[in-house]
């Protein structure tokens, strides 16, 4: 009872802190609007030279697929601006401050949500992913965890706004709409596959979400690039090609894991329900999601489908994933109706 109380307290706090982090990142984006426009090509070269630390005889092509990092903020005001370098420096300092604040708050929110999941496990005496509420809070831990690692290792802070938005909404929905009190599991969930199938689903779901968010950013950035209208925060995003590439890496990681999730689910279904595939709505939508992402991978190697179209497919795939999670759990009856709401 006490564990359950602390778990709820931690999760509610984490939702609030994520929301504050989101505000900080929103302020970061807003402040970045006042940064002046720079020449993309110029900036690219500056970055690469600055980041690569290369020997002088080494000629590096301006095609830096390898560098995922945000352009260093200094790069912007060096390129000159209308309002003068002093103002620009102040603005980029403010952008940087808000950004750091956002990441700091995200770390606090993350620690709170990890604590919430762990105390939930202690309260329930089992792995904390037996219903929709528990699955959501665990998936949010994975999403934010992956994001924080990428901020630390690869400088993906530019994902801050969408990820904190997702985390705030996710944990917020979990503690309000999806919440169910601690209870033991129904016999169908007493299986080792309960651990395997659901963790795989949560991790691949987290990667689908991050990849989907990036695909959205890709479309926004690409549109701005095509209209030659890259300014404000968009300028701080990597080039659309790079965003596309990182999105691909997340989805390419998620797809085999999702395949495994579906297979593990089929094995479990054979044990629990006596058939490995029964076209239960959840199974059907898992397959639909799988097929859409298979389409995404094919689209990336089909002429005329790369880039924008592939990104749209990735977003459709994410929509299907969410429909499977929220829609099927709440509105369609089936064997996976474990939301308990």
């Amino acid at each position, binding site marked *: 009872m006490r564990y359950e109380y602390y778990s709820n307290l931690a999760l509610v706090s984490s939702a609030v802190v994520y929301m504050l982090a989101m505000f900080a990142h929103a302020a970061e984006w807003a402040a970045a609007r006042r940064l002046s426009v720079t020449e993309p090509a110029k900036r690219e070269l500056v970055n690469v030279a600055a980041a690569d630390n290369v020997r002088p005889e080494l*000629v*590096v092509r301006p095609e830096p697929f390898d560098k995922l990092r945000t352009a260093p903020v200094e790069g912007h005001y060096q390129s000159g601006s209308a309002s003068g370098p002093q103002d620009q420096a102040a603005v980029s300092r403010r952008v940087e401050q808000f950004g750091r604040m956002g990441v700091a708050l995200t770390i606090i929110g993350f620690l709170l949500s990890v604590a919430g999941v762990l105390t939930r496990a202690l309260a329930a005496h089992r792995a904390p992913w037996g219903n929709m509420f528990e699955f959501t809070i665990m998936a949010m831990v994975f999403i934010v965890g992956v994001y924080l690692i990428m901020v630390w290792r690869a400088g993906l802070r530019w994902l801050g706004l969408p990820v904190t938005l997702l985390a705030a909404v996710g944990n917020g929905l979990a503690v309000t709409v999806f919440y169910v009190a601690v209870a033991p599991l129904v*016999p169908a969930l007493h299986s080792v596959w309960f651990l395997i199938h659901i963790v795989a689903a949560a991790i691949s779901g987290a990667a689908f979400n991050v990849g989907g968010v990036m695909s959205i950013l890709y479309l926004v950035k690409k549109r701005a690039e095509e209209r030659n209208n890259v300014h404000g925060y968009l300028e701080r995003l990597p080039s659309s090609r790079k965003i596309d590439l990182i999105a691909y890496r997340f989805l390419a990681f998620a797809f085999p894991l999702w395949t495994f999730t579906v297979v593990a689910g089929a094995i479990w279904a054979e*044990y629990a329900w*006596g*058939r*490995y595939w029964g*076209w239960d709505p959840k199974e059907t939508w898992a397959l*639909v999601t799988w097929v859409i992402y*298979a389409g995404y991978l094919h689209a990336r190697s089909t002429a005329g489908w790369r880039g924008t179209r592939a990104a749209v497919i990735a977003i459709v795939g994410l929509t299907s994933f969410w429909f499977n999670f929220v829609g099927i759990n709440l509105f369609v009856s089936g064997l996976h109706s474990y939301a308990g709401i």
Partner: protein
Amino acid sequence: MRTALILLFALALAAIPGSLVPQRRISPVRVSDFINEHPRLGPIYDRVGLFSVYTSPWFSAIYLLLFVSLVGCIIPRVAMYARALRARPPKTPRNLTRLPAYAKADIADQDDGVLGRAAAALRQRHYRVDTAGDSVAAERGYLREAGNLVFHISLVFVLVGVAIGALWGFRGTTVVVVGQGFSNNLTQFDDFSAGSQFSEADLAPFSVTVKDFDVRFETGPVQRGAARLFRANVEVTERPGAAPHQEVLEVNKPLRIGGTTVHLIGHGYAPKVTVKDAQGNVAFSGPVVMLPQDGNFTSVGAIKAPDARPERLAFEALFLPTAVLDDQGPHSVFPDALNPAMFANVWYGPPRVETGKPENVYSLDPTGLRQLRQADGQPVRIALKVGDGVTLPDGKGSIQLDGWVRWVKLQIGDTPGVPISLVALAFAVTGLCLSLFVRPRRVWIRVRGEPGHRVVEVGGLDRADARAGLTEDVAELVAEVSRPEDVSAT
């Protein structure tokens, strides 16, 4: 590739209606409800196969076309891959500076081991290396395409496994009252479906007796009434005459008898009743299986005593494990048998000639029967607790609720293609990982220039989407190759 893309989307779209429209295979009752509710739409849906999407011609057409296109794509690619495996890495391009990654370094005039070191360094990095003239060509990442091919070929085998299961497999269910048994014989199944290649002789001659069945429900405030434990102790006789052995059957722990699996997929109540006829003779005695209607196991069924004389008797009965009688009428408020009771109304009629025609054991066909009514015309209603008995009005006989017992629903089945599909899926996932994570790369190293101004050039090219570290690798190679002392150190 474009064909595959279109067929994949067609497959995704075609699979959706089956999750939103009720399906015959999953819940026939909901299909008939749907047709009753939508008299106009229902028959149209039925005609286009929306109630059985996954066996409909259009759905089958899409996935079969997808697999045809897959095979058509895979065969030439296997041939191409076989050639590529034997081929040497492509010749060094004339202008290495045009490659996505390029680096060069000065080398000493007397240093003639550059190409040797280059070849060694590349081999160490698992490249296939070909030295020709003043340059070394190298390629790695052949496993990417291999993984890709393995993945797609495996999918074909998954489908083959599924098809074998559908042709040679069978699946049936049977309701077994605790204390009674089941022997694996067509006549003992309540429902049964099998593939076209299945023959009755394939049924293993085992029998299973359910000794007892333990079921527990949540009694706490959270998820009150949710199932917590189902466990059946059973005695299995593998073939007639063999020594029986004890097994425990649980959800998630099916029995495996030979190639056949036995799953525990449902349970319910069977009230034990004794019916005596007007002459005082026992016309029926034993458990009557009743079908649960809701999560609290409000169960309905029919008690039939066709042998009662001079008139046969029948009862439409409601069994409630935890009975409550309020303004909603009699219903059950908890799935466990805390306050069991049975409610019934009574039918009687002249004896019927036994036709041998099968009839539904769970419901009462009132043809040839009349409902027993009181003097005021109200139907006679019986309410019984365990141990209670009542005498029917007009000297029609009596009925007693002796007790209750649980029944379990067993699913017996064999799906022979499963191991093929499972192994194929393991290959598919492995192949998929290789095809997504192995990064094919080509590197060329050339020595060029006159004495006094010799350079080594390194150019690199990634052949797949997931490019990472190409520039670093090229820089590292040029550093390693241009300095002879590095090689002697390794």
